[in-house]
């Protein structure tokens, strides 16, 4: 099975600090990592390859140093990696990014599966995976927490929804965006690490993937970031404790009545 995994290099922190004056992310001194959800996506792809055979190609759009993230994926076991890097890609929103990745996927070939993490921990949009599927006209399953069955024509997956999950069949080829709970990503092997550094990782430009100039980067973006800010910390909630459930319920009721809510 031919599988493509789209990954993103992100700053290693869940509490990204924001420059209050410029309204941009402070990246200095923050190490870069592979977006954690994308590691789950790669793990899912590697598991399918181990089961069904085939090839896993990792794809990312980013600055030249994003090659480090690709090498880590190769060390985990990916077969090939491609970096999309071009000044013209800069400033892309999720629409332009998913267009760019879709064009690159077309150049790689005709994958049966495209894996993405459910979202990146820096932007948190969760739009790039679905965007890729739309640009390529493929079906998609988002928030996938389990792959139950892999068949040649379709995939049976569990998709997380509020309060539970749904089981759906997705015809292939398709885009699958995965949850953290889907698996435990493996650690890269030492052998893989050595091989990853011997491997040539091609860099593709906008021209290489035949991307239209007005659909990429800042010019191709439908949205603009107006302001980036850290939300104000809200007051902490109050914890009610008691010996029994009934006791806690009564306490809650008293509180609500006291506040004239009920």
């Amino acid at each position, binding site marked *: 099975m031919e599988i493509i995994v789209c990954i993103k290099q992100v700053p290693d922190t869940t509490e990204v600090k924001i420059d209050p004056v410029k309204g941009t992310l402070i990246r200095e001194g923050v190490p870069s990592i592979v977006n954690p959800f994308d590691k789950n996506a790669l793990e899912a792809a590697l598991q399918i390859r181990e089961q069904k055979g085939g090839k896993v190609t990792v794809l990312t759009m980013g600055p030249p140093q994003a090659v*480090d993230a690709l090498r*880590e994926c190769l060390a985990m076991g990916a077969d090939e990696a491609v970096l999309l890097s071009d000044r013209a890609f800069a400033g892309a929103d999720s629409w332009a990014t998913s267009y760019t990745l879709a064009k690159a996927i077309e150049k790689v070939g005709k994958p049966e599966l495209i894996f993405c993490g459910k979202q990146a921990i820096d932007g948190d949009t969760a739009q790039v995976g679905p965007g890729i599927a739309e640009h390529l006209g493929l079906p998609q399953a988002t928030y996938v927490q389990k792959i139950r069955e892999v068949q040649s024509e379709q995939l049976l997956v569990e998709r997380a929804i509020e309060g539970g999950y749904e089981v759906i069949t997705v015809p292939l080829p398709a885009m699958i965006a995965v949850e953290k709970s889907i698996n435990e990503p493996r*650690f*890269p092997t*030492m*052998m893989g*690490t*050595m091989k990853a*550094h011997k491997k040539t990782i091609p860099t593709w430009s906008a021209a290489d993937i035949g991307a239209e100039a007005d659909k990429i980067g800042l010019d191709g973006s439908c949205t603009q970031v107006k302001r980036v800010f850290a939300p104000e910390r809200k007051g902490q909630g109050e914890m009610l404790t008691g010996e029994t459930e009934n006791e806690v319920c009564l306490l809650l009721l008293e509180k609500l009545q006291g506040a004239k809510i009920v």
Partner: protein
Amino acid sequence: MNFQLSEEQAMIQKIVRDFAEKELAPIAAELDEKGEFPHAIINKMGEMGLFGLPFSEEYGGSGAGCLSYVIAVEEISRACASTGITYAAHCSIGTAPIYLFGTEEIKKKWLPLCVQGKALASFGLTEANAGSDACGTQTTAVPEGDEWILNGSKCFITNVGVAKIAVITAVTEKGQGTRGISAFIVPTDTPGFSVGQPYNKLGLKASDTREIILENVRIPKENLLGKQGEGFKQFLVALDGGRISIGALSVGIAQACLDASLKYAKEREQFGQPISKFQAIQFKLADMKMKTELARLMVYKAAWLKDNGKPFSSEAAIAKLYASESCMQNASEAVQIHGGYGYMKEYPVERYMRDAKLMEIGEGTSEIQRMVIARLLGC
């Protein structure tokens, strides 16, 4: 002169640190408390290829070299020194003698298993009357037909209770002194090979250390390692490599001492401010940082010399000596900075202190290291 790690080495450091922080650090205190050998962790380390770092690809290793290996030993030991010693003993003195001196047949049979972690290896040199002075070796190996018959005992042997293979030194020619000692590869399931109960140790409690008893242990002729009478020379070479890895282990513990102390000193408030604001504590932390950095530099240098095929005996002894003594000093200061809490099991520094002490003893005491250095000075 280049002090930059290669891209591969930097990545290995990052991966092993990540593994150690996520998988090992959270359970290290419990392993120590229970004296429990970390089988699951060792299996994972095998899967990751950590045991193959210093060995070539033809035997299943990654050929990453000694420097990459010591970086890994340091990161593992920073989280759990018990796992660090298990790792270091397996690679440096268990597997390395086979890799360096074994026949092609022996290497093909055992190295892939050792490299994958499917067979742990141990090194049986020390005896009750042969510690620093290997000439006191009393274990004997006598040829008979196509076999060698081994009799005797070994003590303080790391990993042997969990190992599938042991490299054992024994006297093959009495009265020949060090030239009468040979080394043998002995599968631990050979009839007559038995081990004692685990020692009740001061530290490194999650590592396996036992006595070996050899009673008419018969092994095939080809299990002689290299040539007869070369056992002493062989283990001197193996111990040179082993010293670099004990140096790396010491750097790992020394760094852990600094990490814990710095964190505590910034959190602990006395007289209205964090104790890290007091010069008395700052000087301790500065010294700990200095010693850790210097020790690491010397360990890296010794490893670099080894990787580049240059003599490294003196540097290995210096690295082991300086790193282990720095490690013990850091551990002592770490407990001191923590005050009363440092003496309690709630904080990790009392474990570091117990673990650190072995660094000054194992694979050649500090006194032996000074002898080695002095001898290489031409004294």
